[in-house]
């Protein structure tokens, strides 16, 4: 049974290749960062577009936190042939959406399943010591708290050495397009 991510426990390590062929390993990213953010991504999902195209939620967050030791990795667990999957589509999305961080391709879905990533977007925040700090939505839209950006709040807390108070929220979006 694959190790699954749980709040307060060590987040599962992984190695994935991005759209440019560069390999990224979580353990290595943690060595050189204060915090790592994982963003489950599918460029054609309307919810993802609302944060990357009609809105700029992710870009704004990365602009604010990227220089404060936050490594941000988008992960696409779509199987080959599924909506939004593949190197070319994601390379184009990086350009169109002005994404300043890597998009990793998890075409077998192995990493997505390790984290139980359900939707795009689905956000995870990992502390430098590898502990999973947050698992949930980008904001409280599904909880009638659309103006609360849980990731922003958690990053501020984590970077100030405070305890993350909201560790879980209800992720929303399109389903991750896993291989069957």
């Amino acid at each position, binding site marked *: 049974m694959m190790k699954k991510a749980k709040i307060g426990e060590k987040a599962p390590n992984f190695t994935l290749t991005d759209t440019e062929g560069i390999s990224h390993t979580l353990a290595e990213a943690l060595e050189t960062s204060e915090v790592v953010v994982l963003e489950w991504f599918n460029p*054609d*999902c*309307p*919810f993802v*577009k*609302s944060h990357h*195209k*009609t*809105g700029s939620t992710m870009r704004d967050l990365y602009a604010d936190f990227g220089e404060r030791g936050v490594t941000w990795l988008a992960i696409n667990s779509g199987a080959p042939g599924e*909506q939004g999957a593949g190197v070319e589509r994601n390379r184009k999305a990086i350009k169109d959406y002005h994404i300043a961080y890597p998009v990793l391709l998890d075409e077998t879905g192995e990493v997505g399943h390790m984290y139980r990533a*359900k*939707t795009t977007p689905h956000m995870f925040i990992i502390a430098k010591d590898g502990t999973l700090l947050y698992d949930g939505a980008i904001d*409280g*839209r*599904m*909880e*009638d*708290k*659309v103006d609360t950006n849980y990731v922003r709040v958690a990053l501020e807390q984590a970077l100030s050495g405070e305890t993350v108070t909201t560790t*879980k*929220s*209800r992720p*929303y*979006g*399109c*389903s*991750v*397009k*896993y291989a*069957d």
Partner: protein
Amino acid sequence: MEPDRRSIGIQSSRCGEIVPRLENHSMSFPFCKNIVKTALLAAGASVAAAAHAGPFETEEEGSALVQPRLILEESALTPGTTAHLGVVFRIEPGWHIYWRNSGDTGLPPSVKLSLPAGLTAGPIQWPTPERYVHSDLLDYVYRDEVMLIVPVEVSSELRPGAVTIEASLDWLVCEEVCLPGDGRASLEVGVAPAGQRVTKNPQSAALFAATRQRLPRSMDEAKRDGVTVWWDGLSLELRAGAVEEVVFYPAGPHRAPPVEPLRDTQAADGALHIEYDERITHAQLVTGVLEVKNDGKSRYYWIEVKGPGD
């Protein structure tokens, strides 16, 4: 929108009952010849009737896959009574829209009603949805056609004539992929004189009857039918005795869904044990719909327990 204050003049009392003929977006009346019909389009109470208006840019394809329309259960609006408006979504076969709680993915539709003065909408009544399991995700959906029922209080002051009810609708319609869409619907309906006997519109009767069968009954009725409800602050136990199947459709709180819905919310032995996590400690109410299936027939009950939160 500025109210149109032209008065309605009824110059003849030989008029029979105003019987709306219901079609998709328009209606026509067999008029009494001497009625001066006026659409009294006051920008009345606008009701945002669902929790989630989408954050999306609408896509044409998403709009084309769903056709909304409005129908009325009654033949006319009678002052001092409650009428029932049906918001109907006809959905392209193979696609679905979502329940008030969409489940793991998706987004419920949003209904914004624009009602003339004298009409007040109550909360939407949602028929019990279907479960849609895909990979290890569980959603709550509607296929083909669904009607949401909105009770509408008709003021006793409302004058006879004709009024227009308008709706602006947003939805997310999905198959393998999801597409946001939107649409509008309107309904012209007659206002009967006060005291006139309320009659049902025969054209909408079947759809209202079918929809009502899927509305949850009260928890009191559940208990009378032998359902027991046990809540210990973290898990909900529902028992319906020796029945074919029980299914729980969680409604709220949105911030604390069941931890393992696929594992916990369906059983073939009449008993469900549904676990929540520590997020439920902030909840005032834990709610959902219990389906009890026996002899091939289903009954639905609204389940509501007090959470630990204030």
